[in-house]
């Protein structure tokens, strides 16, 4: 996990005092994790973009109107908003997420691979797609904990409370999620390539 010089709570304080730069830093710092949380649920890039904006409209409204609870952590709070909006979207539409092809990804997602050849880029994209599919194939209870801990940055204690299980059960589900993922990655030869997984 990354450590930052200025903590999220310090940035929030600055933002409450009118610093838009602090807000820019907060948004930039966490945009991928929050966007990924939404995307994993809706599996549609454009819809995920819309829901990300909706999420932050709620964040801005809450903080600027003085209703933000200082006691909670910023990232778990925002990702919970994002998660709820994504789930609400399907409740309102009265349907479950449909599989959308990966060609909906936008040009900005390719920028990080700009130094790679087209072939390398394709391999990485394929690997990322495969990993996303492997996560989607996990049993619901394991995927839920994995999403909450890894992308929503909730502690195991918080996950246990939200999902109404003991902390040992939450930890056990995470453990099995990681074991299952590793097994499937090994089986499908998603190699632990040092270029892909720098140590």
């Amino acid at each position, binding site marked *: 996990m990354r450590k930052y010089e200025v903590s999220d709570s310090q940035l929030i304080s600055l933002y409450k005092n009118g610093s838009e730069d602090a807000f820019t830093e907060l948004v930039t710092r966490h945009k991928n994790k929050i966007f990924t949380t939404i995307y994993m649920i809706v599996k549609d890039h454009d819809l995920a973009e819309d829901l990300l904006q909706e999420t932050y409209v709620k964040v801005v*409204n809450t903080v600027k109107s003085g209703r933000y609870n200082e006691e909670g952590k910023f990232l778990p709070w925002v990702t919970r908003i994002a998660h709820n909006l994504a789930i609400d979207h399907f409740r309102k539409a009265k349907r479950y997420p449909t599989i959308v092809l990966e060609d909906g990804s936008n040009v900005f*997602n390719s920028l990080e691979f700009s130094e790679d050849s087209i072939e390398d880029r394709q391999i990485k994209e394929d690997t*990322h797609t495969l990993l996303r599919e492997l996560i989607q194939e996990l049993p619901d209870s394991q995927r839920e904990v994995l999403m909450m801990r890894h992308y929503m940055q909730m502690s195991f204690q918080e996950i246990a409370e939200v999902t109404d299980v003991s902390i040992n059960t939450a*930890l056990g589900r995470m453990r099995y999620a990681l074991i299952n*993922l*590793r097994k499937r990655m090994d089986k499908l030869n998603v190699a632990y390539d040092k270029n892909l997984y720098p140590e």
Partner: protein
Amino acid sequence: MLRMIKTFTQNDLIRFVYQETHAEENIEIETAAIFDEELADELNALKRTISALDLVERTPSFKSIDKILSYSKSYDLHSSK
């Protein structure tokens, strides 16, 4: 199953790789991993799997981020309507 020197459970290792162990536990686990190859391998495998999870992160468009930042900057305008 792991044959560990001390009383670390698999759940302890999960808490460790997600930095939810206390400083004292960290030292115990790190020390044990020096002497217990199996434990070290298990920790490395967990870390690699977790690193792979970061790879699936997606990036939103600049346009969306701009809209979010603009909304914040103009909040006073639209909230006073």
